[in-house]
């Protein structure tokens, strides 16, 4: 008990920078990063709902602002983040049942999440132009 105060150089557990990049590693990071971004992205529906609740003038003002290129770009990112986080979440829910945890499946899941989120986002925006009357 005499050397309690002597600091011991204990080994540290390996952290992010020590691992080789892999698809599963990147998709794990993407899931957390999209979740983090969506946390602030939730301000967009809140502001839009408040605008509608505040009357026709505010509605017109916020809609004209949404139609600008930078905001549209943010909305595109928001929609991709939402869809990506949803697909990543479905992957996690499948894992929770104990299925799909083998190496071959997790590689397929990682790729499917990214390919799925990009294609679904593009499909939604194409639909917005085709059906929803979104104009450039």
């Amino acid at each position: 008990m005499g050397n309690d105060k002597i600091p011991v150089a204990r080994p540290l557990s390996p952290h992010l920078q020590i691992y080789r990049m892999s698809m599963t590693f990147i998709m794990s990071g993407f899931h957390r990063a999209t979740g983090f971004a969506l946390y602030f992205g939730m301000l967009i529906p809140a502001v839009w709902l408040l605008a509608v609740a505040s009357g026709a003038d505010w509605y017109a003002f916020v809609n004209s602002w949404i139609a600008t290129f930078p905001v549209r770009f943010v909305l595109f990112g928001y929609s991709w983040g939402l869809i990506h986080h949803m697909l990543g979440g479905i992957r996690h829910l499948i894992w929770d049942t104990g299925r799909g945890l083998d190496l071959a499946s997790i590689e397929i899941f990682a790729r499917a999440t990214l390919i799925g989120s990009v294609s679904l986002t593009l499909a939604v925006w194409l639909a917005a132009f085709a059906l929803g009357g979104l104009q450039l």
Partner: protein
Amino acid sequence: MKFRTPLGKVRGLGAAHDGTGDFWIQRITSIASIPLTIFLIGSCLYLIGVDYNTARDYISSVFVAPVLILVIVVFIWHMYIGMKEILVDYVHSPTLKYTSLILNILYTTFLALISVYAILKLSFGG
């Protein structure tokens, strides 16, 4: 001088019974979020370019307003737990950690309240 170990102090008190509480709610809200996300994207597609009265009627409709409130509550509850998880993982300084944990509670509560208030105002505000 205290000679009791941390284990000795808690032994016999039993489990807290909420050790997996956040984990469980995060799963429930994520399952609920799947149909709600599809509903939200569908609503956005419908609402593009519509005039004020159409948007108002849509949000305040008896079939849409409750589901929109569900979107807000479920998403923000999920966000609150997710951000708490990130903060306790990465923020180590006690001052910063507790400041950010408190801000997380205030931000998510305020965001949920103003969003739900807007929907209710459109539904009942005349």
